[in-house]
């Protein structure tokens, strides 16, 4: 279970997070929605320790994230970055098997390659792409490689940052289905950040809306349509009129 309690983060004069409280139960898929620049990615980065919160606590399975062994802590996570964040200089299979080729999870090279190819197949890519460089792949294929990398070391927790941004609707649907499949099959705890309401409905068990630095609404995905929350209603229907200012 991941618990954020009263998390604040400010960049210069700009307070991005103003007291975020959020609980993600173990094995559930939480989707965080909210406008651009509302601090959704910062929430994920705070949990991972890529950004240090100014105030508040973050616990994973009851342990404060700042007091844990970093390597062991991060070994539990997988992350799909918005742009893929694949390493340009490494072939696809080495991107996927990155963790398995070095550090505490190191395996023999042949075994790491076999696992990488199996994970590539898991996300619908053939073993033929294993020796390609990331720049030789399309955007959708790069997302899938990123997804394969995120699940390569069988993590307990996976974060997906804007998994369908920049993809055509069909490819976005493929990625959404893959994420849902992976979350259900592996039984992982997942947090996804997205603006895409189709993704929300496909991926989420629960939804949290971040607005103005706080969680404005949270609840099961099925309650989203009839929440009665004016912010959430405006956001999910994409209306220009409402309590959320169009000009931010």
């Amino acid at each position: 279970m991941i618990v954020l309690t009263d998390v604040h983060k400010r960049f210069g004069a700009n307070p991005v997070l103003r007291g975020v409280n959020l609980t993600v139960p173990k094995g559930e898929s939480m989707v965080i929605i909210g406008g651009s620049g509302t601090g959704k990615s910062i929430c994920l980065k705070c949990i991972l320790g890529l950004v240090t919160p100014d105030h508040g606590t973050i616990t994973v399975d009851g342990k404060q994230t700042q007091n844990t062994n970093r390597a062991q802590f991060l070994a539990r996570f997988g992350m799909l970055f918005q742009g893929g964040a694949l390493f340009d200089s490494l072939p696809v299979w080495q991107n996927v098997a990155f963790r398995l080729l070095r550090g505490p999870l190191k395996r023999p090279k042949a075994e790491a390659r076999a696992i990488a190819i199996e994970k590539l197949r898991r996300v619908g890519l053939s073993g033929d792409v294993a020796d390609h460089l990331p720049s030789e792949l399309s955007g959708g294929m790069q997302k899938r490689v990123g997804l394969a990398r995120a699940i390569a070391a069988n993590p307990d927790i996976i974060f997906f940052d804007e998994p369908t941004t920049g993809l055509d609707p069909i490819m976005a649907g493929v990625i959404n289905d893959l994420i849902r499949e992976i979350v259900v099959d592996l039984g992982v705890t997942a947090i996804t950040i997205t603006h895409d309401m189709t993704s929300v409905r496909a991926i989420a068990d629960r939804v949290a809306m971040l607005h103005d630095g706080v969680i404005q609404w949270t609840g099961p995905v099925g309650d989203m349509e009839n929440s009665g929350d004016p912010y959430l209603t405006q956001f999910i229907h994409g209306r220009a009129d409402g309590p959320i200012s169009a000009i931010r």
Partner: protein
Amino acid sequence: MNPLAAVGRAALGGLAAIGRVALFAGETASHLVRPPFYWREFGQALQSVGYFSLPVIGLTALFTGGALALQIFAGGGRFGAEAVVPQIVAIGMVRELGPVLVGLMIAARVTSSIAAEIATMKVTEQIDALVTLSTHPMKYLTLPRVLAGLITVPLLVGLGDIIGIMGGYLVGTGPLGFNKAVYLTNTIDFLEFGDIASSLIKGAVFGVIATLMGCYFGMGSARGAQGVGHATKASVEAAAVLILAANFALTSVFF
């Protein structure tokens, strides 16, 4: 505006920058004694910093040695000292021009490349990805490159010194008409161990400066294409100025 306040702000800014670079260098060095060490990345850095710099270093040294021989012959001729061409080419290349030119060429070629690569990795979230994959970016990106600079740049300087002297030899024994055996004897007899040692030490220091600046500005890059461009430009400027300043300091020590 108070001019004293402006001077104070600039001085404090300069000191803060020195402090940040010193902390960055210290953190890089600390990873040397903390496993794991990424041998593969180190091997690639040796290749890119050292091996692939050979052509540009060789050509730079060759032309500089040749030009130096012509200049010394012309200048020495004004007071009847044309015969000192082999000795001055040798000492000029080994003690000064070899290390400085190699250092500046490495700043142009390697520092810029490291800064642009790491800055691009930063803006495309590859550095964040490294962290989430339990890999320390300083250990994976910075340490192998700085160590490669420390090891390969003195070797490049040594090679540059030899090729520069060869350039002087070709010009001296060709158009300037020196006897080949005498030219070589004068060159070898005139050089001392201290000259060569100072050249190689300068190379090691310049190698660390060039690679460290590339990594420092790359890691500190701002977002976007402009951030990458600025990091690349600033890294080369800083490396070139620091190499020239370190050259003066080391020359004062070895003088």
